């Protein structure tokens, strides 16, 4: 079976040795210990596993690691420099846009991707753009508010 031996993650090159048909989620979590990327359903329904691949929100539970070799992957751990917060992360804190926090990394990366496509989205655009993400605690209105706050501060990165 074809193997993938290197991934570009969070601005650095990481050595791995993984079957190319493994999911990106599995490799990030099990091989690289980047567990900020969450398993929620494993079937693309909840988006807790969202990462950025070449800047675009991607469900890492569906994509095979072989398909992202050579592409730039950003996980929640690499969204901002160490000890700093990305404006979207800060906005989630400011809006209290979380309860248990399990969906939060995926939500934040989904929001970052959305703001790159649409720097000043309306509430309706946010609702449709983020509709793949599940927050079972029901913080959706707060997430919408956080994204609007980040947009107002030029939250795209």
């Amino acid at each position, binding site marked *: 079976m074809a193997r993938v031996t290197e991934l570009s993650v969070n601005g650095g090159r990481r050595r791995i040795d993984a079957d190319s048909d493994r999911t990106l989620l599995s490799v990030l979590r099990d091989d690289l210990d980047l567990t900020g990327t969450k398993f929620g359903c494993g079937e693309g*329904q909840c988006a807790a596993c969202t990462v950025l691949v070449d800047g675009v929100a991607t469900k890492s539970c569906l994509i095979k690691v072989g398909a992202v070799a050579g592409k730039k992957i950003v996980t929640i751990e690499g969204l901002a420099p160490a000890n700093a917060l990305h404006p979207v992360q800060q906005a989630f804190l400011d809006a209290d846009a979380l309860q*248990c926090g399990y969906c939060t990394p995926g939500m934040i990366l989904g929001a970052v991707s959305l703001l790159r496509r649409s720097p000043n989205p309306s509430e309706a655009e946010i*609702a449709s753009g983020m509709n793949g993400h599940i927050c079972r605690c029901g913080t959706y209105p707060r997430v919408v508010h956080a994204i609007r706050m980040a947009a107002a501060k030029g939250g795209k990165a």
Partner: protein
Amino acid sequence: MKRRDFFGVLGGGILVLLEDDAIYAQETGGPRGGNQAAPLELGAWLHIGDTGVVTVYTGKVEVGQNARTSLTQAVLEELAAPAANVKIVMGDTDLTPFDIGTVGSMTTPRMWPQIRKAAAAAREMLLDLAAQKWSVDRTTLKLADGKITSGAHTGTFGELAKGEKWTRSIPSSVPLHAAGDWQAAGKSVPKVNGRDMVTGAHKYTYDMKKPGMLHAKVLYPPQFGATLISLDAAAAQAMPGVKVVHEGNFVAVAAPEHETAVRALAALKAQWQPVTAEADDHSVFQYFRQTSTNAPAPANLTAYTIAYIAHVPLEPRAALAEWEGDRVTVWTGSQRPFGVRSELAQLFGIPEEKARVIVPDTGSGYGGKHNGDAALEAARISKAVGKPVKRNWTRDEEMMWAYFRPGGLIEVAGKTAPDGTITEWEFHNYNSGGSGLQSPYSLASRKEQFHQSKSPLRQGSYRGLAATANHFVRESYMDELAHAVKMDPLEFRLKNTKDERLRAVIIAAADKFNWKGRQKAPLKGFGIAAGFEKGGYVATCAEVDMNADTGTVKVRRAVVAFECGAIVNPEHLRNQVEGGVIMGLGGALFEEVRFGQGKILNTHLKEYRVPRFADVPVIESVLLDRKDIVSAGSGETPIVGIAPAIGNAIFDANGRRIRRLPLMS
């Protein structure tokens, strides 16, 4: 932890032990194991060591309800320190006092004042130490920002506690100053460990690893209750690194990589004895009536049905287990760590002190994580293979093998006088539960009964318990009665209650919603519902638009008024109220566990729909702050009003009374 061990484990300093016999009277979260050791008599303890960090130990856990934050506020209310110097150790059976569980919205009314009392006692001890050390009058001492000062003297908590080994036991009857005088409490303090959540740094159980650990999968039967006839594990056993565990009906595989474990599971060849299921999702409501343990209601009542629904915590059940000799440690996301400890002790026939359960802040529970399903599996497999074992449930395992909010059949009847006064009320709940069964309205005559029935599915606690079902039926039927006497549903409710707190939330919600000024339009409807449960009063108004072509409903707007006594953290309370409404929207509109032939038929999120961004209406919450009333919890009650408010709004829109949950089945 035994009393004599405290300073050995925690280091020197000062220690407050809060004694509370009443803690064992808390509502239980489910059946207890039979091997329960005599519980400690302490409700909480608080330690200050030479670092000056104030550490509180409580058996409560954090599942997103923000108890870690509110309990930090409880400390800061009595003991002025930088928030960063307050640490709350939660849900560790070796370190924290026994606790019945994070259940029944009890953290705020019971644990919160206890921790304040412990912090208040520690404050007095620090003042005593400072007065003694500096030989000054106690009245000259000032305490702020983690320091005590008097004239030229100054000492941090750590400097004052250093070298001490002073323990004070206090009864839980210590008085506390009233909410009107609160300094740190009553304010919108942000989530204390929110930063770890937004950076991905927090390790949930699902994320945890141990060196040398194996990933495990369990071979579940194809139907509930099916028994294993034969197993051929040869192909799985031949895979490198794979271990197979086979103990009676329990079959599991473990491997160094998760994918290998998945392949090994698929390679098992098992034959199961089929089971004939007693009911499916259609026949279950009559099944409840037929299996009722007491006499069913007369046949002429109005029947409502409530579907089974699933908790769907975004973090599925998970556990990491490790044995050292005859002692097991399990990390798991559970609302009842001490209950899980009992389950472990019972399964392995070991004393409770040989099992330690640690609960990291967990990816939600909603009443769905009261037991140790994944913990028992991980510990059992770990014992068999002699290595640490990780057992992470998949989403479909979670949907099939967790327990559910009970389904129910509810039969109701009532009579009203021409002026709208309810004169008779009869209400029978089969299987769904007794919480919220009693009407909060003034009823001249009432019969309210819970009928225990057989459940074809494994069922248990859920946010709000049966209060959601009972409020849905009661408030829908209140609407039926109001329309029968041609009274406005708001006026009808106010006519039938003298409870000032209930009236206050009804009026607050109606005012904010502009109920009296509502504008009727084709296919548009407005509904109202109210109730009381677990110390909280709620009233909910909803506006809906019906789609004439599809018959579906769009909820446009919801206004919720909520009152649970003195508000501890307004923003977090608002967050809970909104979250309850949104979670309740799912059970109101479309969530329904479908089952037949002894299995769940919708185990994937594309078949079991939960609320998403596009489903969410405009939500406005009105929080009534009653500083004269002791704070109650808010994690559950706000969920109960949304379903009947929507059902009543649908009737208002199209004259169709839907007597089932979910409404859009």
